[in-house]
């Protein structure tokens, strides 16, 4: 079963179409990179997948649960890291995680234990009692990922998670997420416009002007398009220099 199936998804803001006929799937336990330039429609796509917007057309299924018909069941399987930071700056890292756990119905004692475990795994346990306002950008991102994992999701969605981070911070975050994917079998949808974040073994979906231009294994894109590299393939698909 696919972790995420997006079929013929369409959306518009007023008369301006932003997504048209978007279809792709993320297999269980796989890392899928959603590649697109700024304005390609990635964030709108995330908003549709997470139910923040209702799709004007098409459907989203998460482990077989339709977002339209059963949003709670679909959302319960998802961990989400939005492009905009969504931490409550007036709460500590631990309080942010426990708030999220409560929203997912996790009992308080289990929530305390899990918050320590997840923060420890992401290397920020020493910040558990610090207000998130006082954390660096990289630390906040890690806390957000730890929070997204609190309820044991089987699908992790990350919308431009490395935006605003320096190069070492970006690499560390990418490494953490790949470990999660490998060790816990979590399916990951990672939206980015940084081509260097694509791994050779990843699946990729190239989104441009609201349409999927290519979807498949990253190691096949160059061969299929007859170019030398992913960068060239991306340029030819999106018409970018």
């Amino acid at each position, binding site marked *: 079963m696919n972790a995420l199936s997006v079929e013929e998804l369409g959306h518009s*803001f*007023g008369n*301006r179409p*932003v997504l048209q006929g978007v279809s792709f799937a993320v297999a269980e336990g796989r890392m899928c990179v959603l590649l*697109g330039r*700024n*304005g*390609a*429609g*990635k*964030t*709108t796509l995330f*908003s549709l997948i*997470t*139910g*923040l*917007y*209702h799709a004007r057309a098409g459907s989203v299924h998460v482990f077989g649960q339709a977002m339209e018909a059963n*949003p*709670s*069941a*679909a*959302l*319960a399987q*998802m961990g*989400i890291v*939005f*492009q*905009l*930071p*969504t*931490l*409550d*700056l*007036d*709460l500590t890292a631990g*309080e942010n995680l*426990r*708030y*999220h*756990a*409560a*929203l*997912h*119905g*996790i*009992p*308080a004692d289990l929530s305390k234990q899990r918050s320590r475990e997840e923060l420890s795994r992401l290397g920020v346990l020493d910040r558990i009692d610090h207000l998130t306002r006082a954390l660096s950008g990289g630390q906040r991102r890690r806390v957000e990922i730890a929070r997204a994992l609190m309820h044991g999701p089987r699908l992790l969605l990350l*919308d*431009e998670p490395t935006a605003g981070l320096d190069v070492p911070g970006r690499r560390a975050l990418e490494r953490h997420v790949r470990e999660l994917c490998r060790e816990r079998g979590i399916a990951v949808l990672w*939206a980015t*416009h940084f081509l260097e974040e694509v791994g050779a073994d990843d699946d990729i979906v190239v989104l441009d002007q609201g349409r999927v231009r290519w979807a498949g294994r990253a190691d096949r894109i160059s061969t299929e398009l007859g170019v030398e590299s992913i960068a060239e393939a991306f340029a030819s698909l999106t018409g970018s220099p």
Partner: protein
Amino acid sequence: MKTHHALRALHGILQREMLRTLRQRARLFSAMVRPLVWLAIFAAGFRSVLGLSITPPYQTYVLYEVYVVPGLVAMMLLFHAMASSLAMVYDREMGSMRLLLTAPLPRWYLLAARLLASVIVGLPLIYLFLFVARFWDVRPPILGYVAVFPALVLSGLMLGAFGLLVSSISTQMENFAGVMNFVIFPMFFASTALYPIWRLAEAGPVLATIAAWNPFSSAVELIRFALYLRFDVVSMLVVVACLGAFFLAAVVGYDPGRGLWSRRGGEG
């Protein structure tokens, strides 16, 4: 929706509201000082120029301070509701609202939980004000402090639902200056919070009619009557009806298919 899940979520939302309120000390301080300034300065000044005849629920002539305290309590609820509404707009701009709205619970429940939590968090301050008001000889019956509790919750929910509705249609925090000028002040001044309706009628029948139809007046009267162990059925019905209407409209406003959110674009 499972009951234990719903209750844990409510507890989490309530805890978050409490922590945020306690950590925003300036807001807490100003919320307490505002009605005290009205009581200590405004009411003292008006006491000498504004005579009040016997007005229900009072069974005798009362000091202006006694009359104005329920109005100031409702004012505290109104400002608290608008501050909470502002916090919702802030949360939406800052992104943390997304976390709440992507929780695996029905959206109406999440909004209701947030609304209830906000009202509960605001109540201790109101009781503190009612206690301090005793020093100005505003001494309702002791049982009145108990009887007023449901009136406070109901009025707080109604005003909070109105704030929720405002937050669902307000696109930016900057719009809140407009909300202050065009919503809070007219709602407060064109009501029975500061003057009884017959006084307003003396000033002008239009103003009296506006005050009579203003749901904020119903909240004020519900609180006033409950505080003096009387039950104002009409005010309660108006408050309940407005609560229902405002909340339903707010839920539509936050609906991903129909609300303002889905009509606006995002990044990427």
